[in-house]
Every structure is written in structure tokens, then in C-alpha cells.
């Protein structure tokens, strides 16, 4: 929840993410002799703190700008890791952390977007909640001609894979259609006693 910089002995300091205005990777050695992570902070830091901060594993330098005008105070930090290949990871980690700290003072955007996305079209057509599944009869009417043909073919395959003497529960063959109105019903007991006793069927 905060950006912390510590040396081996555990001494260091922390910055609150909301105070960080921007951060960057600087590899321009003409501007600064080491590749570093630059962080600009919207706050004031005393010069004394900078001198007390120890320099061990990673160097850390702090510059506080004099604010002699009415503008906000700015502090700049340059984090120089001993391993410069860590800079990318440091930069990315900070980006992610910053994204987790949206501006609490943001009044302009209406951020009441918790929960479901607003379905503009559904609302316009006057239809709100639609079921995400259908019962058999309803669903059948939504099948295209191709879909219905596929359904019949699959059910035919299911019916054929069982011996013609028996009806597999739930499969709508011509006989069962007449018997059961609701195709969702499943018989738990076998239709014929000992139906599966000789279940060794060669396919």
C-alpha cells in the first residue's frame, strides 16, 4: 500500500502512492550518471531527512525543490538499483500499484459502475432480465432449422447406441415422446427389470 525503500539494515522510508504524480525509467546517462527510477512526489521533504538516509545496497538521492511561488510542492526521487535490469520490473510494479490507487478526489467522472454492465440495447427494447438457459420446449423453439436437425441426429445416435429393446432414460425416441410430455424427466429405475445386467455390448 506504500512504496518503500529499505537498505540492508532495514532503515529507509515510505511514500504514499496517492502522493506520487509520476514515475519513469531514465537511462539517459548524459542527464544523470546512473540508470534509475525517477519518481515525482506531490509533497514536501525536509533536507535533513535526505542526509540521514543511509546509502547501502541501493543509492538514493533526494532533491527538494524550493517552492517560492504558489505552486504545489514537488519532490523528486531517483532510485538507483545495484542491478539495473531490475528497473523494468520496478517500473511495472509501480504502474500496477498506481492503478490500484485511483484519485479519491476525482469528482468529474461518475464512477457508479459497480456490478453488471449496463445493457443499453436491452433497456431500450424494454427487456431486462433474460434467462440464461431454456426449458426443453422453449429452447426447441429457439433452435434454427440446422440446430433442430443436429438435435434429432444426436438423439438418434443416443437411441441407436442402446439395444432396441430398452429405452435409455431421458432420450426422446418416438415411443417416449408420446409417454412423456416433459423431456427433462429422467427415470431413475430401469424401465425393464434387469435392464443392464448384460451390459457387455459390443459397439
Amino acid at each position, binding site marked *: 500500500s506504500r512504496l518503500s525503500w529499505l537498505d540492508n539494515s532495514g532503515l529507509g522510508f515510505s511514500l504514499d502512492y496517492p502522493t*506520487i*504524480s*509520476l*514515475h*519513469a*525509467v*531514465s*537511462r*539517459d546517462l548524459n*542527464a544523470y550518471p546512473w540508470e534509475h527510477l*525517477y519518481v515525482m512526489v*506531490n509533497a514536501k521533504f525536509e533536507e535533513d531527512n535526505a542526509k540521514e538516509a543511509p546509502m547501502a545496497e541501493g543509492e538514493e538521492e533526494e532533491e527538494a525543490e524550493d517552492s517560492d511561488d504558489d*505552486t*504545489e510542492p*514537488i519532490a523528486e526521487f531517483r532510485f538507483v538499483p545495484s542491478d539495473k535490469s531490475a528497473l523494468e520490473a520496478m*517500473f511495472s510494479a*509501480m*504502474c500496477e500499484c*498506481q*492503478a490500484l490507487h*485511483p*484519485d479519491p*478526489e*476525482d469528482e468529474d*467522472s*461518475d*464512477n457508479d*459502475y*459497480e456490478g*453488471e*454492465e*449496463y*445493457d443499453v*440495447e*436491452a433497456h431500450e*427494447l424494454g*427487456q431486462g*432480465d*433474460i*434467462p*440464461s438457459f431454456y426449458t426443453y420446449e422453449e429452447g426447441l423453439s*429457439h433452435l434454427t432449422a440446422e440446430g433442430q436437425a443436429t438435435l434429432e441426429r444426436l438423439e438418434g445416435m443416443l437411441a441407436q447406441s442402446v439395444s432396441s429393446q430398452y429405452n435409455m432414460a431421458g432420450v426422446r425416441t418416438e415411443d417416449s415422446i408420446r409417454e412423456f410430455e416433459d423431456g427433462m424427466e429422467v427415470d431413475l429405475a430401469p424401465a425393464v427389470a434387469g435392464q443392464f445386467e448384460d451390459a457387455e455390448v459390443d459397439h
Partner: protein
Amino acid sequence: MEVSHSVKERTIAENSLVILLQGLCNRVTTVELRDESTASGRVTNVDAFMNVRLAEVTFMDRQGTLCHLDELFVTGRNVRYVHIPDDVDIRATIEQQLQAIHRVRYFGGRDKGRKEFPRTKH
């Protein structure tokens, strides 16, 4: 730019002009900050909170000192202006971004796949 994985961010983007900024990915432009410093570079990402990520940046601080930065992340709070390049078709960019969001939202087709919210019955 990839569409955000967050439903909340997609909805915010869809309902504000930040969607235009998101369409500027890979374009080179200038961002003016609240403290009047500027950053010019290639846009690599803009999120729903207007946090802007730039690459190959020329940064001019409020004193006018220039420096080059490989990558820069500016919090949305500190963005004052984002320049739109002259050759950007604003309307087309917004429409493309909306289409990208809808492709993600309706992944799997109209009546197939998992949906974030129910689709109309026709």
C-alpha cells in the same frame, strides 16, 4: 491497446471520452501536466482513470529543463491536456474502441458462450 480485463474499467471507458485517449495507443503525442511540465512520447497505455503510460519520452519540467526517459507513467490526476495528433480521425477512433469493447463483451457470439450480462431475446 488491449481492452481492459475489468468490467468496471470497460464501462467507465465506454461512457467517457477517455475512450478516445485509449485509441491513441502507439501514437506519438504530448501530454501536458497539471504543474505545466510536458511529456512527449509514444502512448503505450491509457486506463479508465486516465493514467497514461508513454515510451521514448522527452520530458520538460516546469523550469524548461529537458530530459529523456525510456518509459513514463503519469497518474490521471496530474494530466491537464493530452494533445490529439492532427491526423487522428476522432470519431472513427472512438467507434473502433467501442467495437473492440463489444468484441470482448460478446465473445463467443450472440447466443453462445458465457455472457457478462443477458442478451436480448429476438
